[in-house]
């Protein structure tokens, strides 16, 4: 592909083609496997090989960006890198720091896959989650209808909030054609502090700090055989960050190292903790939950609300411990992936899922089985 073609390919509207594709699949009763850049293809459950790929990477381009209104609308195939570049020119960012998870040098993660998977990065508990920042979406349903929900404004309560419903639905309710996101200013100043402490101390500190008006934007605890260390990122107005730094204490990390730590090591899971083939569990908990008694090493984020676990323990055993604490556990990577990769749903909740799936995709064409085996 030459440079000219590449530029054109990064800005094209394939709504008509994609709608025709879904309509034909619906007529033939042929399931579809939605695919952007493929960076998140290992998440969730595999879609049956018999499903026909529906390639979405070509439907790309920023449709509207209004820096003064803090809103950007882009097609699903737009890469996060392209969006970040456009935002950075105006001193703005996607506040939830979406993980890319692609292989180094491989295809770049797209907006559509990011929102469909609903993953948020290190800033999540201190800024907002992916779902919090979605203002609207244009959705191609399993009925081959293009529907617009929400919009490009911060406050909008007309109709049910179907655009947020799509976040984390793994494409099982519709193809996210265009997505509108709230964006935020880049902080003027950022500082990362490191403190040596064990897990219980880290949990106590993270929760204590979060109850005070401090400009914390990320926290992480890991134990590399050194008894454990806690990383805290402060960001915002310079004076506020400096005051918080002296209130919290700890060893400041040089800015370039701090950026690499949060972006590469944690958000992109390049930290040694994430290496190797042991099953990787993502455990979500009420943030103040005491250390979990589970076999295998853990890495904590989000003030204790997200805990990564490397463990070969039985899924049912892990989930029993996590459920007792009011949390849920996802088999994020590795392990047996044809069973319950996501935490099983309570029967009335599962029943609602089936009905909603039927509402948007009555023939079950879109990514069947990707989320749960039942739909």
């Amino acid at each position, binding site marked *: 592909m030459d440079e000219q073609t590449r530029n054109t390919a990064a800005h094209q509207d394939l709504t008509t083609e994609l709608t025709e594709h879904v309509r034909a699949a619906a007529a033939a009763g042929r399931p579809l496997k939605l695919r952007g850049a493929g960076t998140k293809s290992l998440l969730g459950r595999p879609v049956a090989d018999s499903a026909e790929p529906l390639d979405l990477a070509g439907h790309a381009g920023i449709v509207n960006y209004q820096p003064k209104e803090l809103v950007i609308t882009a097609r699903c195939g737009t890469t996060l890198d392209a969006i970040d570049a456009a935002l950075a020119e105006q001193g703005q960012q996607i506040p939830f720091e979406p993980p890319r998870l692609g292989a180094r040098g491989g295809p770049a993660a797209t907006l559509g896959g990011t929102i469909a998977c609903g993953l948020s990065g290190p800033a999540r508990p201190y800024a907002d989650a992916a779902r919090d920042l979605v203002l609207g979406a244009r959705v191609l349903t399993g009925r081959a209808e293009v529907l617009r929900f929400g919009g490009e404004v911060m406050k909008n309560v007309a109709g049910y909030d179907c655009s947020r419903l799509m976040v984390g639905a793994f494409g099982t309710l519709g193809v996210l054609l265009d997505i509108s996101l709230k964006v935020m200013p880049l902080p003027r100043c950022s500082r990362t502090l490191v403190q040596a402490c064990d897990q219980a101390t880290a949990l106590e500190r993270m929760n204590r700090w979060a109850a005070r008006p401090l*400009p914390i934007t990320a926290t992480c605890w890991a134990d590399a055989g050194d008894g454990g260390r806690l990383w805290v990122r402060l960001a*915002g107005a310079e004076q506020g960050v400096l005051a918080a730094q002296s209130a919290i204490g700890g060893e400041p990390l040089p800015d370039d190292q701090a950026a690499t730590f949060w972006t590469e090591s944690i958000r992109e899971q390049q930290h040694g903790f994430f290496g190797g083939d042991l099953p990787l569990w993502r455990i979500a908990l009420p943030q103040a939950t005491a250390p979990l008694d589970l076999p295998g090493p853990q890495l904590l984020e989000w003030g204790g609300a997200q805990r990564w676990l490397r463990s070969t323990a039985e899924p049912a055993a892990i989930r029993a411990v996590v459920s007792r604490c009011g949390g849920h556990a996802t088999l994020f990577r590795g392990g047996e992936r044809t069973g319950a990769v996501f935490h099983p749903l309570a029967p009335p909740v599962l029943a609602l899922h089936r009905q909603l799936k039927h509402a948007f995709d009555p023939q079950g064409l879109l990514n069947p089985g990707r989320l749960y085996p039942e739909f």
Partner: protein
Amino acid sequence: MSLPQPSQTDFNDPRLAATRADLVRALRAFLPADAVLEQQEQVRPYECDGLSVYRQLPLLVVLPRTVAEVQQVLRLCHARAVPVVARGAGTGLSGGALPVGDGVLLSLARFTRILALDPVARTARVEPGVRNLAITEAAAAHGLYYAPDPSSQIACTIGGNVAENSGGVHCLKYGLTVHNVLAVTLVTMDGELVEIGAAAPDSPGYDLLALIIGSEGMLGVTVEVTVKLLPVPERAQALLAAYDDVERAGQAVGDIIAAGIIPAGLEMMDGPAIQAAEAFAHAGYPTEAAAILICEIDGTLDEVAELAQRVRALLLASGATTVQVSQDDAERLRFWKGRKSAFPAVGRISPDYYCMDGTIPRRHLPQVLRRTAELAAEYGLPVANVFHAGDGNLHPLILFDANKPGELGRAEALGGQILELCVAVGGTITGEHGVGIEKINQMCIQFSPAELAAFRAVKRAFDPLELLNPGKGIPTPRHCSEYRQLPERGPEAHHRQ
């Protein structure tokens, strides 16, 4: 026929009376005597919510005390196909809690307990009838608060906030109800108890919580809510800027945000609103100004000091004629006093007023204000504008006198035109008050038939018999085709009435 007309029924209709007697017998089998109201004078207080132009007596009112009782009430109504309308404090502004004549009005007023408040995890688990402000009051001892602050926060309940996805003046920075509620316990129409969301983030499966919040009581009855609590900022400071031109004030809002500053609150009022508010609240507003901006900055002491300086410079550079910076909390609250009492203030200069709730992309503000003024002249009714400038949520207040023949009809028709104008510039008919019965016509303008069909499919996923809050929120295809075919939606149609 500009007004959406709820079906009117006669409380004393013999057929209804028989249904009522039957249902009361069945309800009294498991509810205490004081939990069922069946006399006309007993149910009268429930005939409307905060939008009192719509009134309808319910078949009867139930006031359960326990979740099990709510489940039993719903099971019974489900089995008999009786509609149910849930109600909190009744402060809603879109007729969302308007009763239906052949249906039960289910009041959650007795669910007033704060069940748990965890200062370490910064969460509170509360019953739906707990008032919005009561949560903040309970959390204050721990230096925490509940962020969404609708202007009815003294009276409105968290259950109603969940139903409406209520906002307030701090939405741009702190979000709406959907950003501050972690979990709800819902009773579906068939009496099933469903836990949605959790104190742990990113619940597995679909984001049902997002669907429930703002669903106007049409998907289920909320019987418990877990909210997120935030640390009270160390300091807040407000700036009050006056402009002799509304457009310049609008541009100043964009300048502040483009400079990378997210104010805690950013409000605008136009001349008529300023004059009414000043006469009422004596907040020290410059009554000769065409517009004022109130910009509140919060955060740590040092952060606020730094940002207030920058905002002041930006306001002056944007052409403000005067900029006042609050020197203490008393002055900050005085700046807010006029804004917070803008609605009652307008109520004092006009016999009646009708509050609109459109949201627009902010860049279209000059155009929308200009067109609103033209429409106001066409309909012969004055309009005062109060604007959540930070997030684009516009509250035009239409002044009218319901005792003058035709004025109410004209006010509502003008309101409808303003909402359709908001849709035309890429906005929405409701930012925070909800659709209810009030904006059911404009839903037909904002959404396509296929989109409305999807909403109805979502509704049926939760409530297949469509018994919960019927006639609200989502219009039927028939309603929309009738509304779209109206030959005349202009002022003349109402002059002729």
